[in-house]
């Protein structure tokens, strides 16, 4: 499993442009947002939700393409003939990308704080939830790659998987105020829980049961997506 993590990081090291994009883009978007809103108070209000969306989106994109390339280049088939458990492969992947996500989230959070994001709770929890959210992007990206035959299709899965979650996560409208059916849909979308947890940390000094539930739901989605992704890895194909 560690071999896979090291390999993923080595691949990224040979691709500094991707690393730069991953680390810098969310921070730049936060900067943009700050001056679009032109008010520290509004920024502070909106930023926690976006902290849950940008890393998720980017990690989803990178992982789904990386895994798709693995499927189409034959390296996945080769790994499937090796004595390597599928979950070890995926865990190795997830660990590698999580380390990248940690750097990304660290930079994005630091920039957001510098721009005036006020966090009532602990910044540590903020980082934990955001990394978990980025990891969700990794896990769903691994899973989504199974449903794309080409990189062209993989890119188009992004709006399918990510945008509805952005619309329904509580950023534009609190979940409680949505029409019942929409609220049900929002309730089964993992990003909703990440955003709720981030908003909680930003606004409340202490963690409570609702926060714990949000974090657990998020963790369960990550684990579920990884297991489902393992199910899409086939040792034998048609």
């Amino acid at each position, binding site marked *: 499993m560690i071999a896979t993590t090291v390999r993923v990081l080595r691949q990224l090291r040979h691709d500094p442009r991707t690393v730069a994009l991953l680390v810098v883009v969310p921070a730049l978007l936060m900067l943009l947002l700050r001056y679009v809103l032109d008010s520290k108070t509004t920024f502070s209000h909106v930023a926690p939700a976006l902290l849950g969306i940008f890393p998720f989106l980017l990690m989803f994109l990178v992982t789904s393409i990386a895994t798709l390339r693995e499927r189409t280049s034959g*390296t996945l*088939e080769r790994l499937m*003939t*090796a*004595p390597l458990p599928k979950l070890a492969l995926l865990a190795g992947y997830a660990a590698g990308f999580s380390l990248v996500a940690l750097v990304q989230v660290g930079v994005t959070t630091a920039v957001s704080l510098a721009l005036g994001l006020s966090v009532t709770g602990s910044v540590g929890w903020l980082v934990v939830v955001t990394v978990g959210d980025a990891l969700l992007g990794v896990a769903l990206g691994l899973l989504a790659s199974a449903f794309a035959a080409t990189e062209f299709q993989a890119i188009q899965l992004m709006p399918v998987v990510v945008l509805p979650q952005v619309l329904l996560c509580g950023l534009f409208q609190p979940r409680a105020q949505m029409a019942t059916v929409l609220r049900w849909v929002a309730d089964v979308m993992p990003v909703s829980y990440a955003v709720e947890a981030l908003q909680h940390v930003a606004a409340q000094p202490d963690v409570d049961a609702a926060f714990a539930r949000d974090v657990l739901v998020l963790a369960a989605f990550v684990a579920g997506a990884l297991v489902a992704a393992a199910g899409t890895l086939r*040792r*034998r194909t048609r």
Partner: protein
Amino acid sequence: MANSVVLCAGLRVVRGGVQILSAFSARIEEGAVTGLLGPSGCGKTTLIRSIAGTQRIAGGRVEVLGRSAGDPWLRRRIGYAAQTAAVYTDLTVEENVRYFAAVTGAPRDDVDRVLDAVDLRPFRRVLTGRLSGGQRSRVSLAVALLGAPRLLLLDEPTVGLDPVLRAQLWDLFGRLTDGGLSLLVSSHVMDEAERCDQLLLMRDGALLAQDTPDALRRRTGTDDLDEAFLALIRAAERGDGDRAVA
């Protein structure tokens, strides 16, 4: 007669509604280089994938080293290099081989051994994506050699290689069998057939003939394997024609 490492009996494979292999039966001898020859599209790759255990089969059976193909026990005992170089283009040659050594459980010093075997040591720090096609397929071959496989499945390993390098690789295959390894090497170049101990000639998803190069030449009364292959095809077609008439 030598022991067999692979046994196919009545193997049938259907892909996308098309029958690729039909009632394919053959055996592959231990400690020999078996050449798999036939026109492109005749099912060579599908046969190799069936033996590697990555191909879902519709009927019949494939036994490898006494186990059913795809058995987890076989994963450490088969080296498989697909037709496309299944290596990471965004890693160096050495990083590729190191990674696969780790996942196949091969010892660390194996990396140098396999890089030497395919003559790629001078390129170890080069990004695989910058190599030529032939060099890239040698990286893939190096990965297949990792560990101590008992059976090597090589799908067109010499495509795109210059004659010198091709000769070197065939010398290597010969040396590997001295160590008791068995090889199945597909090719569509007849002059490579000359270097094999055994030949499987395929056509349209079925086995046309299996024998040593010498015996095939004798059987068909020619001294050229190309001719021998054509003679066998013509004989088979006449056989089909007879049946069609009857």
